[in-house]
């Protein structure tokens, strides 16, 4: 299905889905959303792109290989468990810091969010890997 309309739509929608996926990811801790759904949304943009062009083109657009996304995701998830050790708490304890940023107000950052970021990247990488492979068949 090579049509100029879908190609244009896919190119324009890609940044939109990426930004939306980050928003959904960020509000995930207390409201519906989170790393899993965010990762799926990020993958959806690239999959639509691959449908409009082809998978090789989409992989070029992705810049890093999907495998590296998975590696990054797993590493981030692993790193998120380390602060609890330095704080002397049991493994996997959520550690929080809150920053006050001018204009934006208070920003709460914590290891559960970092872990969720790991989930985001892993899900993104895995869905892209699976669907690109299926589309190439």
């Amino acid at each position, binding site marked *: 299905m090579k049509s100029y309309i879908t190609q244009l739509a896919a190119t324009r929608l890609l940044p939109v889905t990426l930004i939306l996926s980050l928003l959904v990811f960020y509000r995930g801790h207390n409201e519906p959303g989170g790393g899993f759904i965010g990762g799926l949304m990020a993958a959806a943009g690239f999959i639509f792109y691959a449908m409009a062009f082809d998978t090789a083109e989409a992989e070029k657009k992705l810049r890093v290989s999907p*495998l590296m996304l*998975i*590696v990054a995701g*797993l*590493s981030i998830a*692993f790193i998120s*468990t380390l602060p*609890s*050790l330095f704080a002397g*708490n*049991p*493994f*996997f*304890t*959520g550690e929080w810091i809150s920053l006050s940023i001018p204009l934006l107000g208070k920003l709460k950052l914590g290891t559960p969010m970092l872990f969720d970021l790991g989930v985001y990247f892993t899900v993104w990488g895995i869905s892209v890997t699976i669907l690109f492979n299926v589309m190439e068949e």
Partner: protein
Amino acid sequence: MILPALPILIPLLTIIFLLFNFQRREWQPWIGLTGALLQLALAIFLAVQVKTQGILVLHTGNWEAPFGITLVIDAFSSIMLVLAGIIAVSVSIYSIDAIDRQRQSFFFFPMVQGLLMGVNGAFVTGDIFNLYVWFEVMLTASFVLITLGGEKKQLNGAIKYVSINLVSSLFFLAGIGLLYGKTGTLNMADLAMKLSLADNNVLMNTSAVLFFVAFSIKAAVFPFFFWLPASYHTPPVAITALFAGLLTKVGVYSMIRFYTLFFVQDKLFWHPLFLWIGGLTMVIGVLTAASQYDIRKILSFHIISQIGYMIMGLGIFTVAGIAGAIFFMAHNIIAKTNTFLVAGLINRVTGSYDLKQIGGLYKIRPWLSILFIIPAFGLAGIPPLSGFFGKLILISAGFNAGEYVISFVALAVGLFTLFSMVKIWNEAFWKPRPEGLPPYEGENENLPVSMVIPVVFLGLITLTMGFAVKPILEIAMNAAGQLLDPKIYIQAVLGS
């Protein structure tokens, strides 16, 4: 406190390193082996810790026991972790040369580590839903490993394997749901306490039966064993050896854990059932094995028959019986994996697993026959090898508990096991090769050292277990004593 989480974290880190170096195929086996060695070292360290300090407990995320996920390592878990480490190291060394390049570059080693992560996770968790999750991690990795390479017969075996295991997961999940609905907790120690206080335990039997079916399928117990011989002979032998050593035993481990810790109310119903099921599993496994001519199929049917002994130990339900089950499980994990690895060596020399195609190996490879004899006669229960003492402990525990029928059945099955092992010995090593066949492919090639090392290593463990029965039995007795007194476990997790 991070110790109880390390058996899960080390395979995870190894996976990250393996995926990161995905392009460097020649590094993959070595990274995998390093991870496996670390796991074995850690498991031994943990076993010493448990011995000196008692049960290790970690409340992850600082959530107190009934609310968060608790990781618990008691004596039984630590024994299983050491065994998993031994198998991890052996299979990692063996696969350097035994697994072809193509499979190696298609995520073989990350998947092995994923499987180990699931197995270790199942051994350390103290939460039934978390146990389900680790089962799934382990199964997903095994689904990939069994289909890796995509040969037609592999896919044929994998369909049976995957579908039956999904059914078993469904039963498992349904059991968890019912139990959670009734008691409102998923923590094993908390469950044990609540169930021991509850007066109406008839309703518990519904979920107990669901768990029993789920674990029976995973452990390949009669009447749910049929998927195992239909699928285990299809992937490369290194993968089969890994599965044979660990997967079914995780099912047995969970069964022993559940039916000693919290499903202990209805003894009159469950223990005779275990004895019946154990006896039937032994007999049917060993009889069907006798009719096979593919080495891997004979060995696969024997996995089933030997699981019966472990279930028998659970059914006897005395300290000696459970200790016998643990000792037997340790012996079986080592010896069974080893026989599969030797089968791989036989295949390397002859190019076949079919007993009708091969013969005369004793003449051309005398050392190989000795390497085969140790685990095979260990399985059959010839003194002074480990299997003899495993069976001896179980059978004498059976006689002491007054369970005469099952003890005689166990004795008879031992004889048939010997028959099967002697059959492989006669056909593959002793009899002259059938005439009119071309010479073996690998007759003049040397076997790769990396494939011989793990076989020797596991063989030495089988011998050691035979000669050092007393200290090893003491460890098993200690673990069994802990299992039969759930108060120790409950107190360690929940506090006083």
